[in-house]
């Protein structure tokens, strides 16, 4: 249904999407090939080489423990991608489940689910994520869980809105007229037709999730040392920022590339997925 030719065509027409795709592909590839391309181990300390400027031996310089910043940044990509994807996939999964039930069933079920969603939404997301993580204790896993919970309402609302709109489409009504069960109707008719806004939202959400997770690590609640997570690295780099600029700059740069890449890609996904735009 989605032909490679069409994807290439769209990428050709839309430069920003192309840039976004390249950025995301770059981050994913370096994450996957980390052990192959990194000259050093991310955790082995080498105090004599600490805080060296970027050079041929250390492309991005070294940190205060003598570890190669380049290697740590690349391994950080692994962590960030995993974090981003997990948060979004789980939040979307749970959110869509409740959202579709809420939208399709209506009535009391809808009101209860919406009330719960609204309760979560009434807190500013960062504050709630902070509070949850603080309650559960610092750590990357807890941060991911907290951010996930905070993101779920977004998908509940998105899915509910889609279901409400699509429920009245004639093809859904037709499905009811041959006795199709509600669960099947949602799976076969409704979800495939709201994939586009869902996937767009998810892609944009990955960038967002990575940013929040990094921010949490930055303030010390997320990834704990010695994990080479970008936010955590920037946190430590703060002290050295003036004289050893490379330590904060490179992780920061990679956060920028990753988040921006996913945002640009998310915008372009809509065009790729629409079955109505002709080849």
């Amino acid at each position, binding site marked *: *249904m989605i032909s490679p030719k069409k994807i290439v065509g769209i990428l050709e027409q839309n430069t920003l999407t192309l840039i976004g795709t390249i950025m995301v592909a770059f981050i994913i590839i370096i994450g996957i090939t980390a052990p192959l391309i990194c000259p050093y181990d991310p955790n082995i300390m080498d105090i004599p080489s600490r805080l060296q400027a970027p050079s041929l031996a250390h492309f991005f310089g070294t940190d205060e423990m003598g570890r190669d910043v380049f290697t740590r940044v690349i391994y950080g990509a692994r962590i960030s991608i995993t974090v981003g994807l997990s948060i979004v996939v789980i939040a979307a999964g749970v959110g869509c489940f409740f959202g579709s039930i809420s939208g399709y069933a209506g009535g009391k079920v809808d009101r209860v689910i919406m009330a719960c969603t609204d309760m979560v939404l009434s807190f500013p997301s960062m504050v709630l994520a902070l509070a949850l993580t603080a309650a559960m204790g610092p750590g990357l896993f807890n941060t991911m869980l907290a951010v996930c919970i905070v993101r779920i309402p977004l998908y509940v609302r998105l899915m509910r809105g889609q279901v409400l709109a699509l429920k009245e*489409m*004639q*093809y859904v*009504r*037709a*499905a*009811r*007229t*041959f*006795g*199709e*069960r509600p669960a*099947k109707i949602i799976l*076969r*008719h409704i979800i*495939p*037709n709201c*994939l586009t806004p869902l996937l767009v939202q998810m892609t944009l959400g990955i960038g967002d999730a990575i940013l929040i997770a990094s921010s949490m690590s930055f303030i010390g609640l997320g990834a704990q040392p010695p994990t080479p997570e970008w936010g955590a690295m920037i946190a430590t780099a703060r002290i050295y920022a003036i004289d050893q600029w490379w330590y904060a700059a490179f992780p920061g740069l990679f956060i920028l590339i990753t988040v921006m890449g996913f945002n640009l890609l998310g915008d372009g996904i809509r065009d790729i997925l629409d*079955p*109505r735009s002709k080849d």
Partner: protein
Amino acid sequence: MEPLLEIRELKKTFKIKNFFGATTEVQALKGISLAINKGESLGIVGESGCGKSTLANLIIRLDEPTDGAIILDGQDISHIKEKELRRLRSRIQIVFQDPYSSLSPRMTVEQILTEPMCVAGTKTFTEMRQKAVELLELVGMRSSNLTRYPHEFSGGQRQRLSIARALTTEPEILILDEPTSALDVSVQAQVLNILTSLQKKMDLTYLFISHNLAVVKYISNRTAVMYRGKVMEIGPSKNILMSPAHPYTKKLLEAVPIVGKPFHQPDTEDASVNEEDILDGCGYYYRCPFAEKKCLGKLPGFIEKANDHLVSCWKV
């Protein structure tokens, strides 16, 4: 002979909540009684707001009536539960008006046609595929279309696919809710031809809803004229449309533009205020040139003007 489908005093009220929580009630159907015999084609004609689509929704049980009964082959289906209804669903099917939203955009033609069969669960994959090919041929389309998506077809072809889908469960009654209103005239002719030949071939019973009087006359044996939730007149199509008895039907026919017919200047009363809905009396009271005080009271019920030609009007 017992009618295949009978509707007795069917009423439907919608409750609409406005922003502040106050509810207004809208009576979409104010007591409809109809009967359709097996093999015949009943046309329902009316303008917007007359309730014809609501009637279709109730018969196909996408909604439940507020009052009255829908009797299919002797069984009252108006309020039976979904579980029981599922068994009966294969007997009545519907074709909707909009060819662009009646087929699921992300399913292939094969999936669309085999879905009703999957729900019924009585056939194997090969049998289902075979049946899908047969259905396509019935509506004049090639089997190579099975792998294509709805957006690749024109409006007329999509309506044909909708008809094919409706026939999957071998229904006895087919409700056609304005099936050709969104189509060009020449495409409409193709679809109407298919519908007439299918009716003969498969001994189908049609309930054909439309606002287009000529189309209704072409395809139906009998016609019912609806206005604001009530049936004004019902009888053989020829009689109704060639010698109408009810003032509303007469007005409707005068207004239909036909090639070659001289233009008849309408009375310049205008649709200014949304008139108050009349619940008990004749809904046409405000616009009827013959309206009397007693028209606001109880309606006369059906008066038989001629053979099988019934009119609900004091004037007759």
